[in-house]
């Protein structure tokens, strides 16, 4: 619930978190944070340790070592207090089948210490926000579609207006319309609460998140704003150029603008050849390349900088070798 307590430095803090299941290390020495009001995407391949990390942060599983804190409160030492600041929607979103949506949310509101005189209003508000009020409020949860069940899970997470929301794969199994709805809902939380969200749909994460944390085999491989990670992990800026000029002419004109450029012919259609020109990401020629090629007299039909998406960043980050990861 909203209160006047001072803002902590990190709404979510994982410090050297480690989780071992016997000889298997699911999470190793993982450190990252989520600032108040920030939306952070938590990414990693299957089995990377995302759900284990989220469960430790949510207090439903103990870590082997390290510290997890929610709103400055240690999850291990003061679990009840930490849970008061946080809501967690686990993967697969388990819900009781035999309760109606409204009944379930009312029960959860009471358990989450929503003041008795505000329970009905909060339940009505989250059902409205999650588009449950009209079609699902009085239905048994067991009769709901996957999309509505996910909405119930998110409505539950928002009930007590927590400072931190942890969502494990909230869009899994949803159709594109439902994904857009959930995305808009999560986006509306920016600035109001810190959100840590794991998803396999990188395009969605990129559209919603301020920052991403990428883990692989339980270890942190990258974290930061997508633009910063792009610079860090993908050192080249690739341009796609379609022209009638020969490879020799294109090479000459490109190297004149940027001597470190790499040129590659991709294929020819009706006399027009597509080239990929790879420039160092920091090269000033990124801004003058088009002018330079035209000035060299090349007959250009198309020139565009290839967009580097979160998918490229994710692949680059998760391919990092252990030696690279150990580098300070």
């Amino acid at each position, binding site marked *: 619930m909203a209160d006047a307590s001072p803002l902590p430095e990190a709404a979510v803090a994982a410090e050297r978190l480690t989780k071992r299941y016997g000889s298997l290390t699911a999470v190793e020495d993982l450190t990252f944070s989520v600032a108040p009001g920030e939306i952070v995407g938590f990414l990693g391949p299957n089995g990377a340790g995302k759900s284990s990390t989220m469960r430790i942060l949510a*207090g439903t*599983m103990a870590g082997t070592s390290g510290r997890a804190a929610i709103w400055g409160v240690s999850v291990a030492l003061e679990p009840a207090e930490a*849970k*008061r600041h946080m809501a967690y929607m*686990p993967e697969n979103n388990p*819900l009781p089948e035999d309760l109606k949506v409204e009944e379930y949310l009312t*029960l959860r509101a*009471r358990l989450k210490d929503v003041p008795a005189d505000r329970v009905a209003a909060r339940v009505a508000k989250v059902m409205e926000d999650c588009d449950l009020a009209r079609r699902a409020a009085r239905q048994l949860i067991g009769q709901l579609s996957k999309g509505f069940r996910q909405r119930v899970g998110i409505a539950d997470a928002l009930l007590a207006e927590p400072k931190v929301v942890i969502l494990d794969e909230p869009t899994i199994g949803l159709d594109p319309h439902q994904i857009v709805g959930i995305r808009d809902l999560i986006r509306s939380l920016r600035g109001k609460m810190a959100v840590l969200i794991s998803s396999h749909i990188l395009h969605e994460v990129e559209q919603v998140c301020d920052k991403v944390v990428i883990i692989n085999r339980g270890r942190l491989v990258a974290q930061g704003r997508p633009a910063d990670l792009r610079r860090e992990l993908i050192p080249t800026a690739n341009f796609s150029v379609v022209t009638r000029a020969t490879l020799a002419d294109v090479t000459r004109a490109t190297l004149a603008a940027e001597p470190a450029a790499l040129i590659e012919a991709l294929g020819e259609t009706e006399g027009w050849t597509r080239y990929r020109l790879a420039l160092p990401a920091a090269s000033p020629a990124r801004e003058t390349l088009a002018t330079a090629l035209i000035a060299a007299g090349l007959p250009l039909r198309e020139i565009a900088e290839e967009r580097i998406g979160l998918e490229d960043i994710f692949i680059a980050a998760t391919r990092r070798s252990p030696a690279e990861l150990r580098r300070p």
Partner: protein
Amino acid sequence: MRHFRTLLAHELRAAALAGGTWVSAALFLALMGAVHWFAVLDGAEAPQPATPLEATFQLFWIPLLCVLPLLTMRSFAEERRQGTLAALLTTPASPAAVVWAKFTAVWLTWLAFWVAFAGFPALVAQRLGTAGDFRLGDPVVLGGGLAFIAVSGLLHVALGVFCSCLTRSSALAALLTFVGLLAFTAAGGALEKLPIESWEWLGWLREPAAHLRTFSHMEDFTRGILDARPFVLYASGMLLCLGLAVLTVEGQE
């Protein structure tokens, strides 16, 4: 334990709406109705050392073994199977509050079954036209018997709840509870039959055995004798089982 009342209300409501509860109630009343009816018939044929109501309470172990596991089996096992227990524990509600709420709900349901059974002696008296004849429904026997069920139920229900914490399978939880209750009841019964007093090498067992005689406790209660020792036994057993249940729930990963 701040959320105990909220959780208890939810558990009681869930029990009232669950088909399993009503099936268990029907099974319980059918069993006890049959047992009581046969006790009345026996009493009508020849003089018996116990009144029909006392004889019925002496067979308390039949519904204990057949019906109680059906009530306790779902308390945790089903929630663990569905994953809703983990979701419940993401709220500020403590594992202790969850365990106590589930225990109390089943215990109250179990008592409600027995209170419903209390209508049988009145029904028999009405059918036989012997209303006011206390031999068929002595209030002391009835009250004492129900008090025994309430007190012993503390441990019996707690054992069932603990067994339900141990597994995701309701059937396995019921089986574990059945075995646990059978062992406890049979141990109490066996200790009453064995002439421990005459076996010197078992002398050390005399004192603890005196505390475990479940059937003696039941007879004492139905005679209106209230001894503190059964209270201590069943209450401490309940605390042990529920403590273990809380630790099990906390430790589940």
